[in-house]
């Protein structure tokens, strides 16, 4: 029973990844541009190439990257390579492989996104839950309002404002990059502290705008749950406010909010592209951005596939978490 469920979910996961990889394969090829040709066209402008040689070089590189084969052949090879987790070489940063590009970019992005999403989830839900709770202190409600107002400010504007006031005017925090020049990311404590310092502003830019959404959804959820008969009966039972808040109120708002969290983790990558660009962070978003601009197919495939796989896996994992949160799902 449970094995069948796992099998079905994993199968579903593969289908999702296959669909995504096919779409990713087709879209860049519709653009009719040839990454190798463009790269050499750029180089040839500086002179020193005869047109014949150029064609030969392009043909040879196309052969090397497998771009001269018919489309279906490329597709077949492509799927086969994905199965081996081999996305080939980056066209633009040769001889780096796509996997290497991803692996170097991942830690920064993962750290930034995970921390900011989870933090704004926690802060937002805490404020939202309390602002819907009649016995909550007034300062909580007072705090929730500015966050809700900030929801309207896009992360990129927030980032610019933070950079200007805190980074440039007050000079409290670094303006960009992941490390201060001269500090090598060698895994020492001081290099991590330096990284942390550089991540504060981008994190704030992502958090400040997203807390409000959680406050609103949690507040709405909280008001609904408080109208439920079981919360009422809990009060009739003479339970302490703390127990009602934790076991009857918060516990029941958790399931819908957990779903929303999983969805948010999937979409947050989009804002990462923007924020990483603004703050010059060497993350996945930045890598994807430059890959798109230089028609670096393999890197685009690799990153998009990686993100799809990560989000799809998260969703499947979520389905196994639900039963822990809600016993009503356990039997189905």
């Amino acid at each position, binding site marked *: 029973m449970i094995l069948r469920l796992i099998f079905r979910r994993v199968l579903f996961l593969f289908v999702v990844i296959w669909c995504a990889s096919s779409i990713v394969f087709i879209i860049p090829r519709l653009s009719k541009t040839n990454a190798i040709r463009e790269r050499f066209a750029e180089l040839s402008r500086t002179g020193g190439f005869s047109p014949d040689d150029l064609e030969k070089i392009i043909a040879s590189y196309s052969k090397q990257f497998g771009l001269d084969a018919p489309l279906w052949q490329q597709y077949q090879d492509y799927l086969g390579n994905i199965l081996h987790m081999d996305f080939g070489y980056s066209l633009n940063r040769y001889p780096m492989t796509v996997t290497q590009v991803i692996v170097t970019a991942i830690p920064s992005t993962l750290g930034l996104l995970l921390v900011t999403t989870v933090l704004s989830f926690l802060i937002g839900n805490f404020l939202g839950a309390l602002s819907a709770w009649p016995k909550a202190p007034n300062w909580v409600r007072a705090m929730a309002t500015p966050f809700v107002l900030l929801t309207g400010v896009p992360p990129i504007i927030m980032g610019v404002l933070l950079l200007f006031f805190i980074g440039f005017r007050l000079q409290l925090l670094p303006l960009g990059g992941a490390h201060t020049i001269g500090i090598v990311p060698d895994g020492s404590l001081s290099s991590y502290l330096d990284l942390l310092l550089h991540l504060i502003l981008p994190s704030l830019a992502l958090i400040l705008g997203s807390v409000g959404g959680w406050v609103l959804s949690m507040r709405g959820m909280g008001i609904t749950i408080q109208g*439920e*008969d*079981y919360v*009422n*009966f*809990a*009060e*009739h*039972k*003479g*339970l*302490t406010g703390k*127990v009602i808040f934790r*076991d*009857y109120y918060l*516990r*029941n708002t958790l*399931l819908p909010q957990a779903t929303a969290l999983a969805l948010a983790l999937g979409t947050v990558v989009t804002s990462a592209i923007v924020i990483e660009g603004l703050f010059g962070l060497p993350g996945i978003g930045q890598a994807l951005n430059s890959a798109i601009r230089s028609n670096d197919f393999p890197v685009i495939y690799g990153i998009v596939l990686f993100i799809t796989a990560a989000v799809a896996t998260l969703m499947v994992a979520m389905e196994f978490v639900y039963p822990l*949160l*809600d*016993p*009503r799902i356990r039997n189905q």
Partner: protein
Amino acid sequence: MADALHKSPILTVSNLEVTYYTDAGRAKALDDVSFTLNAGEKLGMVGESGSGKSTLALAMMRMIKPPGRIEAGHVFVGGTDLMALSDEDMRQARLSKIAYIPQGAMNSLNPVIRIGAQLVDALRSHGIRDSRAQIEERCINALKSVDLDPAVFRMYPHELSGGMKQRVCIAIGILLQPQVIIADEPTSALDVVTQRQVMETIDRVKNQINAAVILIGHDMGLMAQFVDRVAVMYSGRLVEVSTVREMFTNPLHPYTAALISSLPNLQNKGVFQGIPGLAPSLLRLPSGCAFHPRCTKMMEVCQSTRPLTRTLESNRLVTCHLYDAVV
């Protein structure tokens, strides 16, 4: 029964008054409600929707939420005035002195935690510091006393039927052996067979702990079978309190009489006799007696003066000008 009358009552409600402050004006949902109840006695509370039955229950539990407010009155349970308690003491009094069995048992249990945990937290919140095993035993005994299997302790609400959920609510209600139990339409969502079983369960556990029971509902047939006395409410006022037999054979208040005659009976099948008119809005109550526009025995005085509640022979209460001369 004669003995019971001489005992001092376990529950005394006096001059209870609740007002809801709405945008459209003030609505007096409870107006000068007073009655008493002895240990082991069962009182049925009947009346149309909006007559104040549930408000009375909530007021006695001190669970009236804004925009409602308890304006005046006292609720004595075994000598303690609930209205005079601090919020924390009132919390402790709920379930231990006065318990409430909810209307919608289908949704009254927390869907995500086990039944057992919902009994245990009630005990823990009332300062019971026994060992886990002792508390569990106590809860399982409570479940057994309402005819539930001990296995229910480890189950979730969605695994139980409606009748079983209602029993769980009753088990919670009697956990701390309260002196007063208020059951607010405890059987309204159940089929008749389950209804009877649930009522019998309430009856039995009531006898075990000798509590006074207030049964709220509009099922007169159910009332006739299970309660000792019936209280009739109209527009937030108590219009009559009589024993079941007196009420069915010799109703005093014209509204009670109309209620009784509106019950279908076997003699004239298919003929339904309603009460003409509609229950008045609490925002615009008629002058004098609130029932006078619908009353068949309306007199001049009814339009101008509010009748007072009078105690007649055999301890019957009635609020009607017809009995002004009797006393």
